[in-house]
């Protein structure tokens, strides 16, 4: 950190703390001089100078004592207040945790394993005997011959090309960089249909690699809760393909993505396998090159392995880093094309080669959700020996789009198992893929029907175990799976009596019906929820909101009790000097926070520990139950304390237009979350609210009597509205908004890099924003002290470096300087980013803590008299101007971490916030709920304007690599958080600005007012979290649950926790530093 020195006063780099002391000393000296003069005047008779000096000294000492006491009292009350917010955070976490545990349910996992000897078709038919379709084959019941079905391949090579979307592999009539670059799969399938086939491969959401691999090996449907474990893969314990192979003594080799290692620890041949780090999305080549380097030697040693898994990540990483619409994607796909054709050439008759995508990618190259583009992958199988067929001749040409003849991803499981002769994993729900079993002629219906029947029988067995474990009865109503099963079995019986292959076609269809229906039922079933837990979570959140609102509503009358009267203050000080106990008891509600925290602790801990003890003694392991009941009792205690101080919810009924506006904004949006449309179009709705507030404040300003204030207020209102509209041009559309929305956040709709013109935006912010900030400080004479240096130079430099970072990044992505050695630009930009973050967050915070107020003090003789006159420039905004430095530091950091469009949007946001606090000040609205609510709305608005949507796929994971080369905990998640919630974090950091803006030192009750504003701010997010939670629970059978309602609930929940934490870390802590600093210089007001 380079401590900025004040050029006029000292040449040596004075540390800010010494400058601080200097200002304090200046003020004290000036005040002393003034007091001395006054004392002189007061004493009518001229006394000796010595006596006078004594009086002054005495007064000085007494004042010091009072100041010390007041400071200590402030720090104590601040701590209690912090305690209250910590309690609120705990309530939020417990409420959200409870709801989530009931809402994002996990499937009941069964430990059963399939074995070779016990085929599921034994004892399942209605006749009670195994009336097999196929005649017994050689080696039936052994792995080498085929446990449940004749074996067709000895070995398999499975190449997973991460994020291989179906349309990448089929010819398309356009010049998109991601089309027609990977023609090998399509060509082979079309030219030699007996050797290869290509079909769309539909992934079950969530489309994260870890969940996909679970589905691809176990054949089950993943549940949503698993997505949280994507960063810490856990071993699969359910029956799966690899487990079966290993159980049969087969050797498995793995190359590529190390997620496999996490899922299947110890499964792979150690000396042959190679795992590579999977989350370094900036690195397009290491994993792929490693796979290619090691896979070809293995082709020469086919006797050393039975299953070879190769997982390439280049296509996925190119998508994450650049989006599909980029040259790198073309290169990557072309490389894969060569790789697969080379590999296919190395196959022998006993080996099947399978190439698949584990999921697709959306328009910008990301995935995780369940939009069509994310779930549509490709599956291609190849055999040197003609093994594959088509049930109809027109099926030879692979489907033109993924909507035609898709197979489910879980279908891979029974297909591979039956081809390799191993038992189908117990939990499988997929069905065999017909091309692989119908024979080269396309007429081996008996073989296909047998495979289908075996699989269906496995499913039936699994279902029976599952229902038994859950204690659910299976009904045989018409259309039910049981009914369909019986129908199919009867068909087998009648088919045996006739001749010809065609009879088996209907048998096959009957079993397929059974499988389809069962899968459908399972999908419904596993959307089943634990309503008790959900209700408990909602209750805790609702009661938490009620207590928060009650807390916020209190103290409305307190404010009027605080009179800004210097004489009263003086009298109070005198009383204090005489030893009369100060403040706490005289001002009602002063120690409210203390009583609240005590009440909350008293309510929480006994029950919580009681729950722990009970769980320990009973051994049930439900230790967390105590948290829920502890939360409820502590809320009850808090409400009792609040009621005690005669605060009732009725206070909350708004009595002004602005109060109503705040309520309408919050409530209408919360109600709107019940509709997928209003959830989808939230960004436009927020713009609508922003404009509504701006126009209302412009009209309201007409009432102001002072013309200057009136015009400035109208002017700021209009600026506020226009800036919001300008920001609204930064858009990242979600799939559901199409076709009524055009994304502008990236260079194109199919890219995740910025266009060259967008790189200019951060430079505009660098040029303009510091001057804007200055213009807001100059009228209150607050552009003094540290402000000119910090805002004019340090902040500006930070913005410049941030803008430069994105140019370097673009140069690196676009390979503008091919002559530079690889990674030069990347290393340079990463170090630059680290410097910016160090400057803004570490040096910035240090400077903020030690900075004196942004004031200048002059002492001059009053002309014509002998009196001294003290002039303090910036006195009227001493609190606000100084506090502003903190949000600016935060802004410099998130400015870097957002992409160029987002950086521009955040610049607009800062400007809007300054306009907002001016508007609030002119219209005397600093105590109204509308201020914090608007700030919260701005926070959410800019969440959308920084390239996000309430959808998992819009998380900008690549931002983790802005200041780092690899994933590092805890920094990477923190960086992604700062990127994702930049808007809300900046809003949380500026809550104190509402209270402190244009507030001079002698203001009382700031802590109470801040706490209330912060409460309103949190209340907005808490109400949203509660509403989305309640709606998601209520609409749990809605078609759009996992596409719209659930992501919105998760966003709201995470946002609530984020604003809770950052509000405390930045807002409350910053307020404390600020007040201490101002109090140190100007004395304590309370």
């Amino acid at each position, binding site marked *: 950190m380079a401590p900025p020195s004040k050029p006029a006063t000292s040449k040596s780099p004075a540390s800010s703390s010494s400058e601080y002391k200097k200002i304090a000393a200046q003020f004290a000296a000036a005040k002393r001089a003034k007091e001395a003069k006054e004392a002189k005047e007061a004493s009518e008779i001229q006394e000796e100078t010595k006596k006078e000096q004594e009086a002054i000294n005495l007064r000085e000492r007494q004042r010091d004592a009072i100041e010390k006491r007041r400071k200590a009292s402030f720090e104590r009350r601040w701590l209690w207040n912090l305690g209250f917010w910590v309690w609120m955070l705990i309530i939020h976490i417990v409420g959200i945790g409870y709801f989530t545990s009931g809402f994002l349910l996990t499937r009941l996992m069964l430990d059963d394993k399939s074995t070779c000897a016990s085929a599921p078709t034994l004892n399942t038919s209605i006749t009670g005997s195994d009336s097999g379709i196929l005649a017994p084959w050689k080696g039936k019941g052994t792995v080498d011959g085929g446990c449940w079905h004749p074996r067709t391949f000895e070995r398999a090579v499975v190449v997973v090309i991460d994020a291989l979307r179906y349309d990448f592999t089929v010819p398309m009539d356009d010049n998109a960089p991601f089309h027609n670059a990977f023609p090998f799969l399509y060509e082979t399938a079309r030219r030699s249909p007996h050797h290869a086939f290509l079909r769309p491969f539909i992934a079950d959401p969530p489309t994260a690699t870890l969940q996909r691999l679970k589905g691809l090996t176990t054949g089950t449907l993943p549940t949503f809760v698993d997505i949280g474990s994507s960063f810490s893969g856990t071993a699969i314990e359910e029956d799966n393909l690899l487990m079966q192979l290993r159980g049969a003594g087969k050797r498995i080799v793995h190359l590529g993505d190390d997620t496999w290692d996490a899922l299947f620890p110890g499964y792979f041949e150690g000396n042959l396998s190679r795992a590579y780090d999977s989350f370094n999305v900036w690195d397009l080549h290491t994993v792929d090159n490693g796979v290619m380097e090691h896979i070809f030697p293995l082709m020469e040693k086919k006797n050393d392995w039975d299953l070879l898994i190769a997982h390439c990540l280049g296509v996925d990483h190119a998508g994450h880093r650049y989006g599909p619409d980029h040259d790198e994607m073309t290169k990557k796909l072309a490389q894969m094309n060569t790789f697969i054709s080379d590999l296919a050439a190395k196959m022998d008759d006993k080996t099947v080669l399978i190439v698949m995508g584990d999921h697709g990618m959306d328009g910008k190259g990301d995935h995780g959700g369940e939009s069509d583009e994310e779930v549509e992958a490709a599956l291609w199988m190849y055999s040197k020996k003609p093994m594959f067929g088509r049930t109809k001749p027109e099926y030879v040409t692979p489907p033109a789009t993924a909507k035609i003849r898709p197979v489910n991803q879980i279908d891979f499981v029974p297909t591979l198992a039956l081809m390799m002769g191993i038992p189908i994993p117990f939990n499988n729900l997929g069905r065999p893929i017909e091309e692989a079993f119908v024979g080269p002629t396309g007429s081996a219906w008996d073989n296909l029907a047998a495979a289908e029947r075996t699989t269906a029988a496995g499913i039936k067995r699994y279902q029976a175990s599952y229902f038994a474990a859950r204690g659910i009865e299976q009904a045989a109503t018409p259309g039910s799976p049981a009914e369909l099963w019986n129908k199919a079995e009867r068909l087998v019986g009648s088919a045996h009596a006739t001749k010809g292959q065609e009879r088996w076609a209907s048998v096959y269809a009957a079993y397929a019906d059974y499988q389809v229906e069962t899968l459908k039922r399972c999908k419904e079933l596993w959307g089943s929820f634990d309503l008790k837990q959900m209700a408990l979570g909602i209750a805790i959140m609702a009661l938490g909101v009620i207590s928060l609102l009650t807390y916020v509503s209190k103290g409305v009358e307190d404010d009027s009790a605080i009179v800004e009267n210097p004489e009263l203050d003086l009298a109070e000080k005198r009383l204090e000097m005489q030893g009369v106990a100060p403040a706490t008891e005289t001002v009602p509600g002063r120690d409210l926070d203390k009583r609240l925290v005590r009440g909350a602790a008293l309510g929480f801990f006994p029950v919580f520990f009681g729950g722990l003890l009970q769980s320990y003694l009973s051994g049930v392991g439900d230790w967390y139950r105590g948290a829920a009941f502890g939360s409820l009792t502590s809320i009850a205690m808090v409400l009792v304390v609040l009621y005690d101080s005669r605060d009732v919810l009725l206070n909350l009924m708004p009595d002004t237009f602005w109060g109503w506006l705040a309520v309408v904004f919050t409530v209408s949006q919360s109600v709107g979350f019940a509709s997928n449309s209003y959830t989808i179009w939230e960004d436009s709705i927020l713009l609508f609210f922003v404009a509504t507030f701006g*126009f209302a404040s412009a009209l*309201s300003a007409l009432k102001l009597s002072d013309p*200057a204030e*009136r*015009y400035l207020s109208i002017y700021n209102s209009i600026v506020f509205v226009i800036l919001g509209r300008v920001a609204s041009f930064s858009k990242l559309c979600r799939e559901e908004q199409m076709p009524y929305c055009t994304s502008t956040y990236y260079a194109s709709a199919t890219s995740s890099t910025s266009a060259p013109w967008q790189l200019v935006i951060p430079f505009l912010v660098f040029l303009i924003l510091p001057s804007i900030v200055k*213009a807001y400080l100059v009228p209150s004479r607050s552009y003094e002290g540290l402000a000119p240096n910090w805002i004019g130079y340090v902040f500006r430099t930070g913005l410049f470096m941030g803008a430069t970072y994105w140019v370097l990044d673009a140069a690196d992505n676009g390979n503008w300087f091919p002559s530079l050695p690889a990674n030069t630009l990347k290393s340079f930009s990463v170090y630059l980013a680290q410097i910016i973050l160090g400057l803004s967050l570490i040096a910035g915070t240090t400077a903020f803590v030690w900075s004196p107020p942004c004031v200048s003090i002059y002492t001059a003789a009053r002309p014509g008299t002998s009196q001294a006159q003290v002039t303090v420039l910036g006195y009227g905004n001493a609190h606000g101007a100084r506090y502003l430095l903190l949000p600016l530091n935060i802004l410099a950091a998130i400015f870097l971490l957002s992409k160029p469009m987002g950086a521009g949007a955040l610049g607009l946001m800062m400007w809007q916030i300054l306009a907002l606090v001016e508007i609030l000040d002119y219209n005397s609205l600093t105590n109204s709920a509308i201020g914090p609510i608007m700030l919260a709305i701005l926070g959410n608005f800019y969440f959308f304007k920084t390239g996000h949507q309430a959808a998992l796929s819009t998380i900008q994971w690549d931002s983790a690599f802005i200041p780092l080369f690899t994933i590092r905990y805890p920094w990477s998640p923190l960086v992604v958080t700062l990127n994702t919630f930049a808007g809300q974090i900046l809003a949380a950091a500026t809550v104190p600005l509402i209270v402190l803006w244009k507030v001079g030192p002698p203001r009382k009750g700031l802590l109470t007012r801040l706490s209330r504003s912060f409460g309103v701010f949190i209340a907005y997010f808490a109400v949203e979290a509660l509403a989305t939670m309640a709606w998601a629970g209520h609409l749990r059978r809605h078609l759009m649950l996992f596409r719209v309602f659930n992501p919105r609930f998760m966003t709201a929940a995470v946002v609530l926790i984020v604003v809770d934490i950052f509000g405390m870390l930045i807002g409350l802590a910053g307020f404390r530093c600020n007040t201490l600093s101002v109090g140190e210089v100007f004395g304590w007001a309370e």
Partner: protein
Amino acid sequence: MPLVDPVTMSSSISKGAAAKAQSLVKGTTAATSKDTAILLSTHEQQPISLRQTPLAQSARHVFPALLATGFLVRFNALVADPVSTMKTALAVVVALQLAYAVICLPVVGSQQGKPARKPRPGEKNLKKGSLGNGVGDGPGARVYVTAIVALLLSTFLTPVLYAAMVLFGAPFLTHGAHTFLCAAHLAALVLFPIFFVHGVDSASWAAVGSFQAPFDETFGGLVGGVVGAWLGAVPIPLDWDREWQKWPVTILCGIYAGHLLMRLLGGTVLFGKRF
């Protein structure tokens, strides 16, 4: 952002207002120009009562009824082709509003509010002449001139309403005609009557703009039209795939429904009441 010098800004505006006021009606003086910043507390605005002629009293509900009927009749055409329907309808609406103003509304200055503040010495004569030739003047040429001028002023403000709609999120580069015609309808419905009864008296406009004015037909119509337009945006995002959800049909519905309702209420049950 306080980049503009407030003093210059304020003086230029008041000068402009004065100039406008002078050019509007002959005989207007700068009586109010010096007092642009009249405190509302000292200038209690009175509600506007309609003219007491039998014709005005019988026509006051005919016009809204005609507007409502016309809107309902043309609704399907509006949904099918918003631009041309709004264009043709605008002429009809303007004609109806002109007739309404001439027949029913008191022209500016004719219903000289009983001043709540005492006229300052030397101000007496000036006040009397404000925007009219005195109390009790019957409808004459002045009424028609005022109506035309009020219409022109409303036309001038239409781009402002258009800009406001865009700021609220209306399409910026597309649907220009849609939005502009919608703004023109809003201006004809809600701004025109206010100009007709208040002229460009800044104190009255400040009261109206800050929603401090008492309810009457004109102010009620303004509040209803604006709030209706605001609420008209509510159904747009819904995924019902209805034709009538297209821009700006719902806004126009909101404008007409809100305007007509509040015009009725403002002239009757809410008359004289304030927010």
